[in-house]
């Protein structure tokens, strides 16, 4: 059993676990062992039935809640929703989040040292998929001794992983919470992802992915990739409200190419901030994983069939102003779940914040999440009264699906 770190002040320390197996990926690529970085919050109860797995999105990592220090700058990316007495209450639940393989925050990824060359993998790092991530998360579950998650939860790309959990390991989760996500990307989405990839790959500092050995990074490409991404995560209304046509610290145009509009300087700031905390090869891999995900591809484009193995109860949430993962994409998932006669609740939250809404404390959204998590907590108590031990119900060894 791994040590769990969380004290009352929500200070948290990342942990790592090494798996020495040879991992054959869906892309047929191979990793000779891999490391997963993860964090945990709250306490696993004696029955082991209060564990929640959080799956991160494109630019996320394992630091989902709590904080590393008192600087005020190291809060987890979903700390508005996860913590003591928050909608996902760490006083009640044992919350786990890992950095996906291919990542750049402690799990094995393109910037890690390849043991066979003693150099960073760079573009030798194989392409990874949502299925690969779900498998490695199941290995982490085994390691942590969690036979069945009370819920697997994710937003955006994380929602895809949660959905895939319900298909790959149906007996290992009771609830599945899919937020601002989709069962597959559409052409427009893939198009945006490729613009980001092209920006990175055509940067002269990219060096065919092996920029580490030149001690540079494709910063200009990353900046453009983040800027276009950021625009698509907001809504037209929100950008209008936030920036309008406001000029930066002046009343008149300078007729120059320096940032003159507020929106320009905001996006450049976002782009610059991203360069220092994210690896370009990881960004490429993550966007490809997004593009590839399509569980219905193997079932004649029939999502109902694809979700047929699922037994979990679902909560699906979408946001009215999210045009990157629009409510219609979530409705498709809900319809397929209904056709499988599964328990599903669906909230379509009206708000102006676009795709990034899932990260925010929006009342109609967090009330729903809080209620749903309360329901899960109630079941956990009921299970104990009935003497159900989730450990009795499944064998604890993740199999490649």
């Amino acid at each position, binding site marked *: 059993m791994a040590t769990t770190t969380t004290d009352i002040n929500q200070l948290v320390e990342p942990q790592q676990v090494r798996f020495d197996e040879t991992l054959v990926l869906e892309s047929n690529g191979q990793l000779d062992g891999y490391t997963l970085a993860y964090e945990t919050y709250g306490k696993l109860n004696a029955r082991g039935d209060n564990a929640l797995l959080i799956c991160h999105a494109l630019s996320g990592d394992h630091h989902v809640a709590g904080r590393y220090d008192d600087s005020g700058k190291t809060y987890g990316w979903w700390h508005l929703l996860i913590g003591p007495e928050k909608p996902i209450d760490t006083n009640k639940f044992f919350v786990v989040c890992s950095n996906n393989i291919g990542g750049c925050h402690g799990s094995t990824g393109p910037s890690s040292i390849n043991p066979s060359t003693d150099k960073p993998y760079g573009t030798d790092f194989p392409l990874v998929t949502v299925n690969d991530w779900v498998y490695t998360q199941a290995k982490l579950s085994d390691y942590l001794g969690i036979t069945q998650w009370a819920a697997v939860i994710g937003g955006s790309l994380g929602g895809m992983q949660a959905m895939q959990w319900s298909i790959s390991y149906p007996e290992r989760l009771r609830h599945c919470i899919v937020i601002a996500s989709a069962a597959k990307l559409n052409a427009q989405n893939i198009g945006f992802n490729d613009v980001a990839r092209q920006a990175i790959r055509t940067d002269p500092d990219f060096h065919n992915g092996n920029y580490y050995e030149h001690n540079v990074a494709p910063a200009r490409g990353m900046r453009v990739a983040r800027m276009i991404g950021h625009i698509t995560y907001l809504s037209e209304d929100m950008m209008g409200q936030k920036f309008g046509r406001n000029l930066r610290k002046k009343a008149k145009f300078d007729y120059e190419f320096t940032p003159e509009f507020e929106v320009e300087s905001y996006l450049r700031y976002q782009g610059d901030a991203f360069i220092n905390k994210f690896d370009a090869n990881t960004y490429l891999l993550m966007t490809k994983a997004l593009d590839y995900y399509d569980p219905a591809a193997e079932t004649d484009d029939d999502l109902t069939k694809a979700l047929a193995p699922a037994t979990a109860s679902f909560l699906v949430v979408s946001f009215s102003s999210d045009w990157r993962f629009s409510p219609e994409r979530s*409705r498709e998932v809900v*319809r397929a779940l*209904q056709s499988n006669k599964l328990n*599903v*609740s*669906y*909230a379509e*939250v009206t708000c102006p914040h676009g795709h990034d809404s899932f990260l925010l404390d929006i009342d109609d959204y967090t009330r*729903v999440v*809080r209620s749903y998590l309360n329901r899960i907590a109630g079941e956990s108590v009921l299970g104990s009264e009935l003497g159900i031990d989730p450990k009795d119900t499944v064998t604890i060894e993740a199999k490649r699906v």
Partner: protein
Amino acid sequence: MSKLLNISTLSRYDHQIISEWVEPASRVIDLGCGNGSLLKHLQISKGVTGYGVELNPEMIDQCIDNDINVIQFNLDQGLGHFDSDSFDTVILSLTLQSMRKPLTLLEEMLRVGRQGIVTFPNFAHWRNRWQIAVGGSMPESDELPYKWYDTPNIHLCTLNDFHQLCDQLGFQIESSIAVRADGKQTLGLKTMPNLFGEIALCRFSKR
């Protein structure tokens, strides 16, 4: 309970009647389910499974608190969410009168389910008639507390009207009851339901 109407005492009584019309362990949708209290009642008393549909965001978390499956969408967009013939009973409780296209929704109910149950305020209740006939004004009552210009209840009908519509749509009326909002039984209610019934409850299926 729907906020379209102002009815507080009714709920337990009409839940009881609807409950008698629903088969044990059957599949049910409750359209316009409010806080989910009816579906919760049916889950507990009849062991049904299914979904509630509600648009109002204030109600969604209450439905979840009530331990029902709730799907948030606008019924005026039809029931495309649900497969044909996938439910035993489709309930539309005190919501029909606020729909833009009640006809389409009624047809959709029997596309999706084997039987439909509709409850609505009976506009032919004598107090409404009195207000129009003598007062010369659009009726307002405890049940229908809105002014004509700001009411969400845009398709009010009478018990007789509803029977005629079912006939026209080729629906078979299986049961039909009119009740007072306070649940009291009276002789007038029994003999002249369209005059003394405040709330109408109808169960129908394909002919």
